[in-house]
């Protein structure tokens, strides 16, 4: 069955989620991946959106982080201050998803500005929950389309901290969480190498050449000793995803 690269990224991301995970879900691909996991192999996964909805089971994907569907299908909805204090800072969330305009090889992410902060070339939306999501979720998965403009040697601005410029920096700051541990792109999966804190390629999507990955990465990318070939999306996964996207599209046009 044919699939496009967005579908592939979403399916790959959904597979790494466990039934016991408590996910802090962002809008867009993370939301699709989390809900796909819930509709396939992880029916009891707990999804939390920063608007305060806990254990939500939306039928369609929300356009925004606080759509009514999220609250109506949630076990409970708490205030935003409570969400960030008791739930996120309190260490209750196992998985956070992040994306951004730029990411570097240590998983530092920029969603704030391109150029100088005080005289930005492009003003991006800003961090929102990201600085503390990156700090307090037990682990972080990143979903981003790969390009040399996005995967850069050094981000213009560290909106959310990954591994700084090497291993051990998180611990030195008093953080016991793992930080970004996987990046899922349209070309491959990267994972943190423990010794260096750098992201290296551990799985290549079917039909993608190593050169293509390098061409779309702004730093000299390294490959793990054993690199897997990513499993292609299964029929059941694609059908569930497409149904979800279809329902979503209809709801949003409504």
């Amino acid at each position, binding site marked *: 069955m044919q699939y496009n690269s967005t579908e592939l990224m979403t399916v790959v991301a959904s597979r790494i989620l466990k039934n016991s995970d408590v996910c802090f879900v962002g809008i867009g691909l993370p939301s699709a991946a989390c809900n796909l996991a819930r509709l396939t192999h992880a029916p009891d996964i707990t999804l939390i959106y920063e*608007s305060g909805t806990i254990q939500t089971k939306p039928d369609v994907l929300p356009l*925004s982080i606080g759509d009514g569907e999220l609250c109506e299908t949630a076990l409970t*909805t708490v*205030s935003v201050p409570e969400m960030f*204090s008791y739930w996120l800072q309190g260490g209750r969330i196992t998985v956070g998803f992040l994306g951004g305009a730029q990411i570097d090889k240590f998983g530092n992410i920029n969603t704030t500005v391109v150029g100088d902060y005080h005289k930005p070339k492009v003003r991006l939306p800003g961090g*929102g929950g990201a*600085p*503390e999501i990156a700090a307090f979720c037990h682990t972080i998965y990143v979903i981003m389309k790969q390009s040399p403009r996005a995967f850069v040697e050094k981000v213009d601005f560290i909106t959310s901290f990954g591994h700084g410029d090497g291993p051990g920096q998180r611990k030195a700051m008093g953080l016991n969480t793992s930080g970004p541990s996987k990046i899922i792109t349209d070309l491959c999966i990267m994972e943190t190498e423990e010794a260096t804190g750098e992201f290296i390629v551990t799985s290549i999507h079917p039909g993608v050449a190593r050169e293509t990955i390098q061409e779309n990465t702004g730093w000299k990318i390294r490959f793990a000793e054993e690199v897997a070939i990513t499993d292609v999306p299964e029929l059941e996964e694609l059908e569930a995803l497409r149904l979800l996207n279809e329902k979503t599209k209809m709801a*949003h046009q409504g």
Partner: protein
Amino acid sequence: MKRCFLIIDMQAKIQTLQEAIATHLFDGATVAMEGFTHLIPFAAGHEIIRQGFKNLELVRMTPDMIYDQLIGAGCVRKLRFSWGGNPGVGSLYRLREAIEKGYPQPLEVDEHSHAAMAAAYAAGASGMPCAIFKGYYGADLEKVNPSIKTLACPFTGERLVAVPAIRPDVTIIHAQKASKKGDVSLEGIVGVQKEAVLAAKAAIVTVEEIVDELQPSSPNAVILPSWTVSAVVHVPGGAKPSYAHGYYSRDNKAYMDWEAISKDRERFNEWLQELKSTDYAV
């Protein structure tokens, strides 16, 4: 503690939207209009544009379309915020033009994370001068914003972060219901609205319905007593195109359509002229 003596006199008056905005807003005021995608007080924001207030310092976790409109209309001097985009759609171009090009006027930015903003509202509601929490580990925002400071836990030495409490001159929210007496009830995604109201020197609440008596569904429902609110205004549909849980849904199309208007100064100005020439319509 100055505020406690203000608060004594707070007692909800039922007013029209025009009256409420004219009574409580002033040029240069610090104004928070909250709503975390839900219950966004659009009608009140439009009335601020119509009445032409200037140099406002706006506060909001997620400045979205309504703040883009206020900024584009030239009402805003400064923005304290944590995420400024059109959620699920893209950029707020009026906001970007103000920051990137100083059009229609330069926009000073006081930028934080969501965690910091939420804590700062709670601190404001609690009469604290600042919010203290854990955050920003390694994030550059701490380097560029002098209103983010660190301190050490006096017991463990652990690094903590402080930001000034939010204390708006006026907070404006939209809620589902108020009683004739002026008690207000909110339900669903309640965001930081309770904190924003309790942190403010004056609070305006627009509501879908005014009922004889509130009949909360639960003893622990989110209620703002009349003596925490300055003005209650009956504005059915006042949160459109956002939504009011139990009343109407989010108009996602309006958010998607805003992209093209916001992107183009001329189209925005047409939109602005039309807004100014009409009363609020539901």
